[in-house]
């Protein structure tokens, strides 16, 4: 470590190298943080978490009772033992609260003035953070499973929405209406994700075992369907042209956008090359997945070899993305884990639990400050 610091100081090495080495070391040392806690507001399971990308300070959580809570993760007191307080929340008494469970929340990617939430009550609501009012509501015919707004796009403000119907809806924030539909799946869409590398590339995962990559400007159809056998027909009958042998539950792009990870109910996780849709055939072993709706998992960013954190029963399994090796299981929750998010400045993941609701912060044992 000291040699890294002196090399950085004298200009022999890139400053990024030290950051990456230290990030990797901290991710590898992840354990349940005894000093940091998150205030318990939710009365039932927490379905989704999101940390804002600008500063990494504020976190949103959406629960299965429709409640949305905003937390401040920064430790401004001088005490080592700290509980992250809830700044505000959209509780059951709020006039605009969702009627049923909130499935996905996401901060507006460019600042914290706005966030979006989608729920089983067939709506997607856009909230103003300062006044905590719903600024806009999009209504759909079917329950909404997942939505995502592109973190990198500057030329469009489209939100991709996956519902129980087979069509992916794209809603435009600027105009306030649905702009167009992507047709191609045959069953419900369980997860959607925009590519962090290209503005217009969208990946969608559906219960019909298929994962499609779309360019949303193209009206005719999807760019690619991911095939787990890479076109070799000799493997199995039913799994022709499918990404998994069961429903595809979760999607996550790596932070550079070059690879895509998918998990399915066949208890497998696969890594795909996002430019040509090829299955890289990295074998992660059995990744238990009995979630009937989407599974939200996350990839680290800023480490020398990326790690993926997947909820596995009541633990989080950590795998190295490119080698497939299982590094560790993070144990600490009492019930099943639903989602986890990674904060790149502190290399902490927070995850949440089904019932009773609990959010835990995990960080490396030598947390500074």
């Amino acid at each position, binding site marked *: 470590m000291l040699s890294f610091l002196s090399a950085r100081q004298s200009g022999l090495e890139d400053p990024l190298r030290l950051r990456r*080495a230290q990030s990797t070391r901290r991710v590898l*040392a992840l354990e349940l943080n005894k000093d940091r806690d998150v205030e318990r507001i939710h009365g039932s399971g927490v379905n989704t978490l999101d940390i804002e990308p600008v500063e990494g300070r504020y976190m949103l959580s959406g629960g299965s009772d429709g409640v949305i809570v905003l937390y401040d993760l920064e430790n401004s007191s001088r005490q080592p033992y700290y509980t992250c307080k809830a700044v505000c929340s959209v509780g059951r008494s709020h006039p605009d609260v969702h009627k049923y469970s909130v499935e996905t929340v996401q901060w507006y990617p460019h600042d914290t003035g706005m966030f979006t939430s989608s729920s089983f009550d067939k709506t997607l609501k856009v909230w103003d953070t300062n006044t905590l009012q719903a600024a806009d509501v999009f209504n759909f015919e079917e329950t909404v499973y997942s939505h995502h707004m592109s973190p990198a796009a500057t030329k469009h403000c489209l939100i991709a929405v996956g519902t129980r119907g087979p069509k992916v809806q794209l809603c435009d924030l600027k105009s306030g209406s649905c702009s167009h539909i992507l047709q191609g799946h045959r069953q419900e869409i369980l997860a959607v994700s925009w590519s962090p590398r290209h503005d217009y590339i969208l990946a969608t995962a559906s219960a019909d075992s298929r994962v499609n990559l779309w360019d949303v400007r193209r009206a005719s159809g999807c760019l690619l369907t991911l095939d787990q056998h890479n076109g070799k027909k*000799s*493997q199995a009958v039913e799994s022709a042209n499918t990404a998994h042998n069961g429903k595809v539950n979760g999607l996550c792009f790596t932070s550079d956008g070059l690879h895509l990870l998918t998990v399915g109910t066949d208890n497998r996780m696969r890594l795909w090359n996002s430019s040509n849709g090829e299955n890289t055939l*990295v*074998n992660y*072993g059995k990744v*238990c997945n*009995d979630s009937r709706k989407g599974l939200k998992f996350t990839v680290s960013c800023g480490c020398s070899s990326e790690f993926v954190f997947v909820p596995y029963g009541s633990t989080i399994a950590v795998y190295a993305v490119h080698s497939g090796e299982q590094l*560790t299981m993070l144990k600490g929750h009492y019930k099943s884990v639903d989602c986890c998010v990674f904060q790149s400045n502190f290399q902490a993941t927070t995850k949440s639990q089904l019932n009773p609701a609990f959010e835990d912060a995990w960080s490396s044992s030598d947390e500074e400050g």
Partner: protein
Amino acid sequence: MNRRRRRLASEAFGVKRRRAPGPAQADPLRAGAGSAREAVEALVRLFPRGLFEDALPPIALRSQVYSLLPDRTLADLQLKELQEQGEIRIIQLGFDLDAHGIVFTEDYRTRVLKACDGRPCAGVVQKFLASVLPACGDLSFQQDQMTQTYGFRDPEITHLVNAGVLTVRDAGSWWLAVPGAGRFIKFFVKGRQALLSMLRRAKYRELLLSELLGRRSPSAVRLGLAYHVHDLIGAQLVDCVPTSSGTLLRLPDT
């Protein structure tokens, strides 16, 4: 922090410390084989040939190879290379989409020829072994592939199915199969269930590996306890916990 994470963390900083290799593994079953080829050879030696009167080629399973080679991606890659070189064939065993059997091509060839010796389909089978096997390394064959590329007519394909070399997959495609493998699959599935029930009945649903191997093998387990244990570990149907008295096999909670 466990050992693996510490090693990776020190690698991240570029500090490589050479440590003397630890004492040899206490469990003979868990001593890792170097490469996929050696793993398959070791597993093939575990296969009970006498049980099938030497009519079946020794079959190893892909999950057993994973138990001997913990790095699955590397194991897959090496098995694929061996398959492309033509040294092994991968056979689809019917009971599970993921369960692939591995046989050495030579063993397969000799056993198949012996099985169809003297029967009317012998000529067709020999033609199949000579022309199709070296050319196409896949698990299954399509109709047009068989008729056009290799020149088999429909009655000949029926002979091959009767001889047990091909199994019907769906209209117009066939899996490669081992003649007489039905008995093996039956014993295998029964043995797997018997071993899992042994673990289920144990106190706390866990058993030390050495104790499990030392127990009298139940009547349902015909292929040998070691054979099944490798398969259970590799298929992740049991969790392997390292303890100071050796490896502990525990049934997962989920």
